[in-house]
């Protein structure tokens, strides 16, 4: 059930990113909701199934981003393992943990795309990334904060609603 929930959320994020965000965000810059979901998986899920879910979300994004199938799949898998592997070194009660992970995840994602793009002869994709990396990182962190803030509010209003991992984070995102 939980994995179906992740798939559904991933699909909704993909639809929002491709069909709704382009109407509101300037040029091509848009928040990477699926990356935020993968970081969230990294904070809350176990290695095996979480890794497979992250890869699946990545190849789902690959269908709608760029032309190299498996590029985001690979990038998301690595991001998941890095987040999963390092999250235990941090204080999970820290309110900025998830935001910090989104910050690092965005940088790691762009590094992976440059690396994998190089293998695929994706041209000067690093130039595009270099031009927009800073606004993209800030946008992702801001959107991650808004999402966490809204989810914790939602969970408080609907006590029966259980969002995995949020019981640990809920106090941190309340004003």
């Amino acid at each position, binding site marked *: 059930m939980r994995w179906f929930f992740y798939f559904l959320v991933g*699909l909704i994020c*993909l*639809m929002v*990113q*491709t*069909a*709704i965000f*382009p*109407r509101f965000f300037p*040029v*091509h*810059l*848009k928040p*990477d909701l*699926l990356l935020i979901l993968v970081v969230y998986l990294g904070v809350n899920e176990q*290695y*095996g199934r979480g*890794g*497979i879910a992250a*890869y699946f979300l990545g*190849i*789902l*994004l690959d*269908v*709608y*981003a*760029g*032309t*190299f*199938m*498996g*590029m*985001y*799949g*690979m990038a998301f*898998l*690595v991001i998941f*393992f890095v987040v999963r*592997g390092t999250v235990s070194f941090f204080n999970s009660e820290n309110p900025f943990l998830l935001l910090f992970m989104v910050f690092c995840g965005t940088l790691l994602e*762009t590094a992976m*795309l440059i690396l*994998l*793009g190089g*293998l*695929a*002869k*994706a*041209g*000067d*994709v690093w*130039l*595009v*990334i270099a*031009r*927009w990396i800073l606004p*993209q990182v800030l946008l992702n962190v801001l959107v991650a904060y808004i999402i966490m803030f809204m989810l914790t509010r939602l969970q408080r209003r609907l006590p029966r609603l259980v969002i995995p991992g949020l019981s640990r984070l809920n106090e941190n995102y309340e004003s």
Partner: protein
Amino acid sequence: MLELLRRFRRPILVFALILAALLLYSANLRRGGGSTFFERSVLGLTSPLHKLIDVACKGAADTWNHYLWLIETEEENERLLKQNRWLQNELAEVDETRLENERLRKLLDFKEEVQLPTLPAQVISEDASSWFRTVIIDKGSEDGLEEGMPVVVAEGVVGRTVRVAPHQSTVLLVTDASSAVASLVQSSRTRGVCRGQGAELTLDFALRLAEIKVGDRIVTSGTGGVFPKGLVIGSVRQVVKKEYGLFQSVSVEPSVDFSRLEEVLVLLREGP
């Protein structure tokens, strides 16, 4: 052995998954172009959702523009406001129709200019990431589309189809970093390759001694095997010639405004 596997279960799992992902990525790169069954399935599954969102967004924008701002008006102004609203609505619709007519007329004129059979399509969504430049159109293999077909508008070249599902296709824009179009400078006939840089283009391999000026028009050369000869790509924005080297550095402003793409034409291949 079993004990060893159990002890290093986690690193083995991580390594195996990353290796499998890398092998799949590599296999896909080696396979070259073409859509996989997975891609066609996802595109097919999400096609109705995209169309639904497109219609809903247009409807919501229409409602917002024409009705919502009038909801809380004073009662004594109700009649005038109703009339105003109706007129505004009519005006907006007329404006929208006029603009659409202008766009379609331009496309129609262009369609008559182009000697190839064409298929009009609507842009329904954009690339999901900030780093790549693709759009989704509402026509697919059921409408006769194949991978590698040129997509154009009246102003010039848009891109080419790279993924085709039964009812929608992905178009790689010429501004994408992985896009390269065989081109020539219209006035001096200097050859080069137009590569995408995200928002603009560069003309690579233009010989340093060739005469290229700011404002010169860049058109397709027809030698790349995808685009027919003579389609407008853009105009020269900047030329940098160094004292040495074989080539000059040329920046090209695309003739198409990619932030306002709505209707496009796909140039179909002529039958045998």
